[in-house]
Structures are given as C-alpha cells and as structure tokens.
C-alpha cells in the first residue's frame, strides 16, 4: 500500500507543527531522565503510548466510517467525502500554523480538571507512567490528528484504519524525540522557519487529500472500488468520471 509511507511523511512534516503543543510534554518526560540514553528510552516509550492511542482511535473511527457507509448504502461517496473533510481539516490546520488564519484566543485557564494528574504522570519515574502519559497525550485535541482520523475513517476497515494511524504516529516520533532530547539545540529563529515550512507542507498534504477525494467523487450509482488513497494501487475507478478532472 503506497499511502502509508506518505502518511509517515505527513506525520513527520505535521509533527514539526505539533511541537508547539506537545514539545513541552516531551521535554517534561525527558527532564526526569538521569542520562541521554535513559532519556531516549523514555521518549520512545512516551511515543509508543501516543501511537497506541492514535491506533485505537484510528480503529474506532474506521469502524464508525464503515458503519456510516453501511447505513447509507445508496450514498457511494462516503470515502471520498471523508477524504475531502480530512483534507480541509489539514489545510485549515496548516493555514492556522502559518498564521494565515487567526485562531480565536482561548480565554480562561485550562478547564480540564485532570491537568494536574497528567502533569504528575509526565514527570513520573516509572516507564509505565511515561507510557500512560503518552497514551493521554494522544487524547489531547489536535487539528492535525483530527484530519488524520478522518483519513482513517475513510478507510472503512478496522485494521487499515489502525495501520493508517500507526504510520502517522511513527512519522511524529523523530520530531517529538528530538524535541525531548534537545529542545534547545535549535535556535528560536530556526524553529520559526521550520514551523513555517511545516505549516505549508501541511497545507499541501491537505490539498492532495482534497484532490484525491474529489477525484473519486462519483455521481453514479456504481460504487467506487476502494479508498481514494488506494487509487494508485490499481483502482478500477477511472478518473474520467470525476467532475474535477474530466
């Protein structure tokens, strides 16, 4: 399946954008480590926790997507629509990161009553706690994640949705681990530049997803065979039916 390497790349590019939110967590995880090696180990365990959550969410969303498709048997475009939704989410996320769209300022302190406990887990000594910290990090609201989840939903298959999210999660590991290992290695200016590049990469990923989804929008009763991302793997759907690329 050719889309999984693409997902890994999306994760890599996207995670540079995510460092703003999740980078401090990675740093906190690393702060309790006595050595460089121990820190690396903790970062890997932490990322494993995150990927685990992504995988479960991917499986659940894929199941829901399949149910949705089954509930709307006459409506053949569910995967394509989900791909478009995912693409739009990614584009919006990218534009937000690039500063093109302004985020409404969040007012008031964090309302989450579990925040204190989460902080305790991040700094905990035991690896089990670090894993759990990663697990809960995966549940934090994140636009990029939602975009990827929409992609997972469009796979319509529990196992495939799961693998989609694992691939995405793996892509986020290098940046997160790097952030946890030496957050101060890169200067502020360098980080800003990286951030900007990542933001536009995200927009690009979103556009690809939208284009693929649009390419598979079908207005006949004939069901499209397979998900938009599998098109390259030999989908019988001919692009000539698409209203976008006639």
């Amino acid at each position, binding site marked *: 399946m050719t889309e999984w390497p693409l997902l890994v790349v999306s994760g890599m590019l996207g995670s540079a954008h995510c460092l703003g939110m999740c980078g401090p967590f990675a740093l906190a995880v690393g702060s309790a480590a006595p050595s460089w090696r121990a820190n690396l180990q903790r970062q890997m365990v932490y990322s494993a926790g995150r990927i*685990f*959550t992504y*995988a*479960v969410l991917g*499986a*659940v969303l*894929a*199941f829901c997507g*399949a149910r949705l498709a089954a509930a709307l048997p006459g409506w053949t475009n569910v995967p394509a629509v989900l791909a478009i939704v995912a693409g739009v989410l990614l584009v919006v996320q990218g534009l937000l990161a690039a500063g093109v769209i302004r985020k409404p300022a969040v007012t*008031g302190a964090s*309302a989450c*009553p*579990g925040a*204190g*406990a989460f902080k*305790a*887990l991040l700094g*905990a000594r*035991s690896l*089990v*706690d670090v*894993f*759990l910290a990663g*697990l*809960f990090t995966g549940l934090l609201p994140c636009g990029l994640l939602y975009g990827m989840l929409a992609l997972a939903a469009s796979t319509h*298959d*529990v*196992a495939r949705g*799961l693998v989609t999210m694992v691939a995405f999660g793996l892509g986020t590991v290098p940046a997160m681990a790097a952030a946890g290992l030496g957050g101060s290695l890169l200067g502020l200016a360098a980080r800003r530049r990286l951030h900007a590049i990542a933001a536009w990469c995200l927009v690009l990923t979103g556009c690809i997803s939208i284009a693929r989804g649009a390419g598979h929008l079908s207005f006949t009763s004939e069901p499209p065979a397979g998900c938009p991302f599998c098109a390259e793997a030999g989908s019988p759907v001919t692009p000539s039916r698409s209203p976008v690329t006639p």
Partner: protein
Amino acid sequence: MKARGVSREESAPVEPRACDYCGLPAGGVAVDEPVFCCFGCRFAASITAAQGDDGQARWMMTRLGLAVFFTMNVMVFTMLLWSQPDGEPSAQAGALYGLARHACLLFTAPVLVLLGGPLCDDAIAELRRGRASLNLLLLIGVAAAFAMSAWATWRNEGHVYFEVACMVLVAVTLGRWLEASGKLRTTEALRELRQLLPDRVRRRGADGDEQEIALATVQAGDVLRLLPGEHVPTDGRIVAGRASLDERSVTGESVPAAKGPGDAVHSGTCNLDGELLVEVTAPPGAGTLERLIDAVSAAAATSRQQRLAERIAAWFLPLVLVIAVVTCAVHWQASGAAAGILAGLAVVVVSCPCALGLATPMALWAAIGQATRRHVLVRDGDAFTNLAIANVYCFDKTGTITTGCRVNDVESFGGVEPNRLLAVAAALARGSTHIQARAIEARAAEAGVTAADIDSPRTIPGCGIEGTLRDTPAAVRLGSSPWVRGEFRPDDPPTLLAIGTEILGGFRFAEDVRPEAATAVGALRRRGVETWMLSGDRADRAAAVAEPLDLRWRALLLPADKLAAIEGFGAAGRRVVMVGDGINDAPALAAADVGVALGCGADVSRWSADICLLRDDLASLPWLVDLASRTRRTIRWNLLWAFGYNAACIPLAATGIVHPAVAAVAMVASSLLVVSNSLRLGREEPSAGTAAVHDAAPRVADPVEVAA
C-alpha cells in the same frame, strides 16, 4: 419574611460534616475516619494523596491509566468482532475471531481488578453508613456482564460484552473523578483564605527560649513570636512590639492598622513591618479567619434548594433501583439473560444522581467562592439567590449611603484650647458606641491628643455622657446642646462640652456621601427595583442625602420603626433587601429577605446580616445582584437539565435500546455539563458595568451637616 430571629448564634449550630476532599457538605454523622461526599471524591482524594501517602497516590493514577489502556485494547478487538460479516465464518476467520474474544477476556480482567476494587470499597463504605448506593448495582451488573462473556468465550459461542464491563467502569470512575475535581475548584476561594494561616509557629517559652511547633498544638495562653511578613496564626493580644497589620482578609480594610501592646490581633491578618510577641487568646480553629470561613462554608449546605435536591435524591435512588430490577426481569423474560442484564445495567449507568445532587450546591459554591474573592461574604445561600428576585432595596443613611459621621468643626468658647476640649471630650466619648462619640474619638486620635482621665463615666440615654475629671475634680458633661446648656439655642453646635456649669465648647459634624453611591443606586434602579433610604436622622438632612441620589426616603426612624417598615414591605408581598450597618441595623437586617451589611468588622459572631460587604464598597452590590441572577439561572438550568436528562434517558434505557457503553458516555457528559455550567460562575467576568462603577464614579461628596 424570614422566620429566623435576630441572633442566629442562638440557634443550635448545625455542623454538616464536610467532605474531606472537596469541602462540600457530605451529610451523615461526624465520625473520626475520613468522610467523602461521593465515590468521585473518595477516588480523587486517593489520587491527590489527600491522606498524605504520595506513593499510593501515584499508584491510583497509574491504575486509572492502565485501566484506560486495557479498555482501549478491548475496544479495538471489539471493533474487530463487530465487523464480523454475517453468516458462518471460514475456519481461518473463525479462529481469528476466537482469538479476539480471548484477547478481550485477557484485557478486561485487569480492568475489573483495577477499577472494580475502589468502586467495591466505596459500595461497602456506603453500606456501612447505612446508605444504599447505585455503585453496588453497578458492580453486580458489570460482574454479570463479564461472567456471561467469559462463559461465551469458554464455549466459543454467543455474544461477548467485555467492552460493556470496561467502558462502564472507566466511564464511571473517570466521570466521578472529574466531578470531584470540579467541586474542588468551587471551594478554592475558601481554601486560599485558609492558606493564609501558617503551618508552623514560633513559641516563646517561659524562660525566653524559642521553639518551632505545629500550629495545631498551640494553646490559649502561649506566647508566639511574629516576624514582619508573617501572617497571624490565631487570635491573640500583643504583649510586646509594635507593627502595622494588613487586615484586608478579615475586615476588608485596605489601610493597615497600627497596633501595639494590649491590642488584639486577628488570625489571617499580616504583620507588615514589626516584630511582635502575641499571647494566644483563641486556640487554632477558633480564630477570626476560621470562624469567618466556617460561616461561609455553612451557607450552601443550608440552602432550600439543596434540601429539596437531597429529598429528591433520597427517593431517586430506590426508584432507579426498582426500575433497573424490573427492566432486567422483563428483558430477561423476553429476550434472555444477556438482554436483561445489559438493559438493567444501562438503566443504572445512565441515571445520573450526581447531576441532581450537584445541580444546586455546585452553582452556589462557585458563586459564593467568587464573591469571597471580591471580599463579599455570603452566609446564607437562600438569601443570596433571593437577591436576584428582590424588588425593594432599603438603605440606611449614616455609614451606608454616607461614609459615616466626622467632626467638621471644633468650636471653643472663652479661649479654651481646642486640644484640651478634644482631650476631655474623647475621654468621655470612649465608653460610648454613639456614632458622634466615635467621631469625636476619631478626631482626637487624628490630632494626636491623649484623652484626659475621667472617673465613673455614665451614659444618660438620649442626652449624653457625664463623669468626673480626675486632675481638677469637677463634673464634666458631653451631649446634646439642650441637655448640656439646660435650654435650646439655635446657634449652638449640636454637641456641647461643659465642666461644672461652664460651657467649654462644642462640636459640629458632617458626613460625606459615598463616592460610589450614585452609580450603585443607579445600577440597581436600572434593574427595575424600588430604592428607599430609611434614616434615623432629621427629615431635612435625610432629604439632602436622598434626593440627589433619587432615593425615596423616610426619616426620624428608630430601629424599631425600620423593622416595622421592612415588615410592612414584606406584608405587601415584596421581597426586601436591607443594606445597612452590621451592628446598629441588626433587627432590620435580620427581618429583611436579604440583609446586606457594611462595616461588619472582624467579629463574625456579631454579624446579623446574610451578606457582608467587607470592603464597605457599595459598588459591589450591583455586581453581587448580577452574580446572584446568574447563579439563579444556572441553578434553574442545572436542575432542569438533571431532571430532564434522567426523565428522558432512564425510560430510554429501560426499553433496552441504549447500549450500556453509550449510557456510560451519556452519564459522564451529563455530569460534566452540570459541573462546567456551575464552574462558569466562578470565573472572573470583567463586566463592563461593574468596572464603570469603579472607574467613572462621579464624586458626590457634598458634606451634609448633621446633629444629634
């Protein structure tokens, strides 16, 4: 009108045992072991190590996290099982699905142990206290679902419901824990106050040696040493040293008070600049700040709506129990054991007694906490919510609309030095609580005049004070001019001082209208309420204060007349707010639907009002009324939601169409809705209206001359 009498201290003290975690009333009797109001608080306390064991706390957190981890695994395998196509699977697929079931079993068992344990402990604790709990039913349902599924896995046929057991346990634990955290936040303001008290103090022994001891072990009579910057740990009297004390926390007064040997200090106040030796007069827990916190703590527990919610909850639990059992029996009969157990479990899980129980107290607590932050102390939850629907506001004049009486002019006759006049008058005035006597004393203190020595001062009611001057034994009199002079002269100052028969001089008084009074009264009137000023003063002077403010007024009222006026409004079916001086207007404050007092001072036991504006700032009144309106809306909304939710969801669950896992999510969502709705009240809202009252208050400070 309130049935309660003037002195609320006389009524038997109702001491609702507070929850050891969130501080909300837990109900039940006082026992030595820790008391929690709900499972959530019990669980949250074990997570935050409220009982002091840090390792145990981390283990509880890890436990919850692991349970979530296992549940997520179960969910994935369940999704796989649910995706099973209809019809007979191939041998390979059959083996795969069998594997998935076993995996579910493997991952569910630890969840039962991890989260079932604490729930089980709570159910047993509740049973011991003689209370039935839904947790017991929940445990039975979960255990049944698990046993049934394990049996099906063993025989490799039939449905499995492992995800139900996991989801219910995780959702219930997580939901109740989040509720408890929410409740904790509402009582934050009071905890902040309590944190003003230090944990350890320095005790000075009889031979001058010093020892650091825990505050709890301090006894009355101990001498403590206080350094600059430290808070006074408990009430006491200064034995040696001088210092300025910041008493904002207990009196709202922002100007530090200078104190020296013999002066009383209150717990929670801050020693700003001097070293003090303080003899303890009240043991820890009985100090000013603690009594103040206790008074506020009791406010929500005694609310009428809270009692109503408790009564409803009392029959709500058995009702849900019966519905659950009946549902289980009916579905069991109709579609087998699995359907029966699932439907019964769904009923128990979806019912949200917490939303019912939390609807009122959480909103009230959040609002009261918010008020406490603004130095407004609420002692009665009902009175506070009544503030929102009151339609008549009565104000006292002196000390409420005006800043109180001050000496405007000291007139001396026959060349007597004004300071001598003040020295003698202040000595006589010292024993009196009369407002003009207080003003004379204040003027003497301002001028740095030491009071003369007076023997056997005596108050003649309605006239003045007389006594004997010690240095030149002579009778002295201070009082209303007709009484001192023996005849009325229109050009006399209202208060005269005489030694023997010789009139030495007199005092003229004035009072300033509070700068914020006009905006505060205006803001209230915009709410459509009637505003009155009830004054004991002469008609012309009452009019001079009231009319510029557009207040309707009545003058020449004795305390009994004010009481009658308030009762008159009440008899006409109006809801009355009396705003007055905490001590002199006590009967009227107690008789009104809501008594709001300024000038409460530090002594909480003397307060007769429902609400005290510690800062003596009338501008906080419209803000408070606004908060009360929002609180009332929130309570009504919460109750409506809690009732509506339960009324809609329980029957739905009883029909068997709601999956217990969905029910669990619905229950958590309902609780969180109520909690977050209440917590919004605790958030500081920089309302434009209130800010304007502070900033743009026009100065309405024309001095109005007053007389006895």
